[in-house]
């Protein structure tokens, strides 16, 4: 071997320090890897355990029948439908406002202290605890506006709570539309709003959809904001009737139902609890998966 010919003292050798350094490098890498993997373990175990416990009850019938015998048995139909109502109503309220707010922040606001304040308000609104939102909803919508405890009041509370989600996601996708698109549009004489409507918004539609999906995800899983603004422990509705609730009715909700049957009602069958938890969890996971798929699709279709 050629290296043998070289004076060994001149050869690059691993000194003790280098060896120690490399050992540390390996150790640190393994530790970080374990930390990352430890994130995986709770998720997988919890999912597996929930499904194992719930496997006996999950069926079409579980989804489409009302709770029976003081919620100790039966299905989750009225809670499921209530959640759908709340989510749709809150999306209808928060969607347009959120998108327009994002348009304001990205297209209209000048880069000054006021924009900073708006930005701070969005960040702080996102950080408000959900139970404080419940108090706000109770004070503002139920009592002050006089709506009373209803789907409308609950979904408006959810809408205020989820507004920052839509704003930040939409804003990111608006900012990703190249400036040249807007300039080209202005140069053919379009006004600011025409540019936004015909060029900016169509080009960021998938980002806006992602924002909506995240809003739905957040709204579907929240319990605290609807507890005092419109959700009730128990309400039986016509099974199979998709229009069983009115906007001013109180309703059940999946997340609230899980809370109720696991803490407020004694003697609930465990598989009903696990079944409800599994349905809620799977719903949220699917919604999130939809957002991920949309994002991957978006990235593959990116034109600029």
């Amino acid at each position, binding site marked *: 071997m050629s290296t043998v010919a070289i004076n060994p003292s001149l050869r690059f050798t691993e000194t003790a320090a280098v060896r120690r350094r490399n050992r540390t490098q390996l150790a*640190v890498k393994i530790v*970080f890897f374990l930390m990352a993997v430890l994130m995986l373990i709770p998720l997988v175990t919890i999912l597996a355990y929930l499904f194992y416990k719930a496997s006996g009850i999950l069926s079409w019938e579980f989804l489409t029948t009302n709770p029976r015998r003081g919620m100790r048995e039966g299905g989750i139909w009225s809670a499921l439908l209530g959640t759908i109502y709340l989510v749709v109503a809150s999306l209808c309220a928060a969607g347009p406002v959120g998108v327009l707010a994002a348009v304001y922040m990205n297209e209209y606001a000048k880069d000054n202290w006021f924009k900073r304040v708006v930005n701070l308000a969005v960040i*702080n609104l996102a*950080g408000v605890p959900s139970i404080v939102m419940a108090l706000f909803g109770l004070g503002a919508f139920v009592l002050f506006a006089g709506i009373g405890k209803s789907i409308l009041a609950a979904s408006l509370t959810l809408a205020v709570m989820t507004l920052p989600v839509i704003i930040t996601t939409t804003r990111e996708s608006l900012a990703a539309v190249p400036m040249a698109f807007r300039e080209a549009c202005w140069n053919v004489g379009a006004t600011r709003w025409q540019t936004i409507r015909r060029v900016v918004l169509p080009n960021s539609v998938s980002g806006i959809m992602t924002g909506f999906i995240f809003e739905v995800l957040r709204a579907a899983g929240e319990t605290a904001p609807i507890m005092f603004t419109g959700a009730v422990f128990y309400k039986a509705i016509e099974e199979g009737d998709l229009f069983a609730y009115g906007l001013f009715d109180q309703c059940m909700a999946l997340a609230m139902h899980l809370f109720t049957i*696991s803490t407020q009602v004694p003697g609930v069958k465990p598989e009903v609890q696990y079944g409800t938890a599994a349905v809620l969890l799977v719903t949220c996971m699917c919604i999130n998966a939809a957002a991920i798929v949309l994002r991957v699709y978006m990235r593959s279709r990116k034109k600029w």
Partner: protein
Amino acid sequence: MTPANPTRPNVSPPEAGETSSRLSPERSTAGRVDEAGANAKAALAGTSGPTLPVESSPAGRQAVVPRRGVPGPSRRWHWLGEKLIESLIRLCGISSIIFVFGIVFFLLREGAQFLFGGLDLVQFFTSSAWYPTSQSNVRYGILALIVGTGTVTLLAMLIALPFGLGTAIFISEFCGPKLKESLKIIIEMLAAVPSVVWGFIGLSVMNPLIINLFNAPVGLNVLNGGIIVALMSVPIIVSISEDALKAVPDSYREAGVALGANQWQMVFRVLMPAAKNGLLAAVLLGVGRAVGETMAVLMATGHSINMVFVKPEGGFNPGWLFESCRTMTATIAAELGETSVHSDHYQVLFIIGLLLFFITFIVNLVADVIVRGVRGKK
């Protein structure tokens, strides 16, 4: 109307309707010169629609958007519509400010009467006696609740920080693109689990587990709540610290490698100091999340009023990890439904809400100032 981008004065969008008074002198002169031609072209365009190709002359371009003179009826509607939609956008833009002030206003509206008349603030903050429904001696002391919130938050951060930062460092520095993608998706999935499901897990999975593992008398305790809240705040810590690490310029990394540092040396000596503001913000936002968490702690901490660090007979309690406790958020959630509207108890719950709002407000504000600096650099 000043252009949105001052470095490109010529690319600001033309206003619908008339704004020449605010245009620069050269441009308004140009507009005046073109006016005759523009009017002629506009008249022409009126017969065959505004999309007539008229870009053959500079004057032709002006015809599409007349700058002065009397706009036709359709243009006036158009102008009105534009103004309307613009004010709508501005209104929506400031909606979040309105809502933040609205929260303060409505919390105060419900709680002010008792806050400014009747509530003993010294007792409120320094007493651990919370007897809101007592017949003989009603006392509202939230010290135990503050301690409960603080303990759960502290424990959650002690667990979540190493894991969150470690995962963020692993994702951004140590792993390949494929593993990176899958880890990020898993963490996103972790963030998608609703808080009530976490609470249910604490109640029915962790509870027996803690009793069996540690021989604890009760499984719904600080440890249970801390672990659950830690799992909930890990995703936010990971995503924000990963952003912070990503924001460190590659030239820093290259300089580190050029000096002979290997990966972990670079991470500890170069990246972490460079990204320390972002990492600090991640911690703060995690704290904000943990303080505000409601349903999970309500279900997992046992919900008994308890100064966890103090033994009933006095002195430090070394077994605080296995004590049940109660947080501010959980108290509101559990008791608001049982109070009558506008009673003292009801108002105190709103005051606790106000306190929680200001705690999270300050935490978020500080995080934002740390990340962007006081003047808001980009």
